């Protein structure tokens, strides 16, 4: 049996949270390249969102914008009542925020903000999207990172929020499987992205990561996009609530 057609997302509507830039922009472009109509959510960087939308259109794809602050339940509700009123078939929760510091120094407001964007927003988006997801054999993909299961220095609140995101993925996966909604996650290692490169310590961090990675390189947005595509397709139908680790093997080494 050939499965090529499983990767054709024509006629599917996909929401990519945080689709304006970074990894999210590549995820949006990848889903659009496979035929999905993509809705790009973002909160502040409209110029980047417009650029991503244009790139999708230039490549012959179809994309709309849906600005919404995912920390605000009322914004999420408005997004589903407005730009997403026709429902969605695919939800990729990629938006994330973080304060890069040790867990024991994270303050209450930083914890709340990080948890709300990185983890709670998935719950609220799924709640809003559930009628359409359940009707159309929907797919939900959460974008996590190695810090959800491992300890990454200075990654305190983000790591804990990713652990919550992965736990939520398991719960939603189990609870919604019977309704035909597939929920899974991908956890990436350090990615070679322009935003990551801007960090002052990037050179050292990248060198350390590459040294510890059996595949001898950093991950790319495209590495993750292929896995997200797989999780958005019927190829992954038998997976429920799983988090796929995509890190070139780094987390397996001691």
């Amino acid at each position, binding site marked *: 049996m050939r499965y090529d057609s499983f990767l054709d997302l024509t006629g599917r509507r996909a929401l990519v949270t945080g689709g304006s830039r970074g990894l999210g922009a590549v995820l949006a472009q990848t889903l659009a390249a496979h035929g999905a109509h993509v809705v790009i959510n973002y909160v*502040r960087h409209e110029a980047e969102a417009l650029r991503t939308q244009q790139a999708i259109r230039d490549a012959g794809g179809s994309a709309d914008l849906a600005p919404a*602050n995912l*920390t*605000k339940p009322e914004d999420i509700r408005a997004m589903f009542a407005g730009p997403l009123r026709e429902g969605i078939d695919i939800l990729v929760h990629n938006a994330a*925020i*973080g*304060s890069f*510091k040790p867990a024991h120094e994270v*303050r*209450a*407001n*930083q914890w709340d*903000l*990080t948890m709300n964007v990185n983890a709670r927003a998935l719950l609220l988006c799924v709640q809003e999207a559930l009628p359409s997801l359940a009707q159309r054999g929907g797919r939900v993909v959460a974008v996590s990172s190695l810090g959800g299961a491992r300890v990454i220095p200075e990654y305190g609140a983000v790591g804990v929020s990713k652990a919550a995101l992965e736990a939520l993925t398991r719960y939603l996966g189990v609870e919604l499987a019977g309704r035909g909604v597939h929920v899974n996650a991908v956890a990436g290692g350090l990615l070679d992205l322009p935003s990551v490169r801007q960090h002052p310590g990037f050179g050292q961090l990248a060198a350390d990561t590459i040294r510890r990675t059996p595949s001898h390189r950093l991950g790319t947005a495209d590495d993750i996009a292929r896995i997200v595509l797989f999780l958005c397709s019927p190829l992954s139908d038998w997976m429920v609530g799983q988090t796929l680790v995509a890190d070139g093997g780094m987390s397996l080494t001691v």
Partner: protein
Amino acid sequence: MTSGDMPHRVATIVAEALNVPVERVTPSASLIDDLGAESIDFLDILFRIETAFNIKVRESELWDGTIDRTSQETIDASIAQLKVRQPDYRWDRLPAHPAPSDLGRLITVQTIIQHLQTRGVE
């Protein structure tokens, strides 16, 4: 809340976000130097301001509004103007010619209040 109490509401928002007593949130208090704000806190405060006053705020307008970052000369000139407007700020803490990386320290509670005033919020 009645109209006209915006500065007090701003102080309360900043105090709640940064978990500091509201008495410490004076107009000339630097969010970074006096109240301990970190970069994620600026976003938190921005989101809270947007919700409280039901407006959309562009980060660049709120935080960079009064400083022209084009060159060291324009930065120095902007700061000279700011010194007149904000005499209570602890200017002795900044270097004579602040680098772009120092400018965040200039953001005070008054910076937020002034931005909201330009937006017609009272």
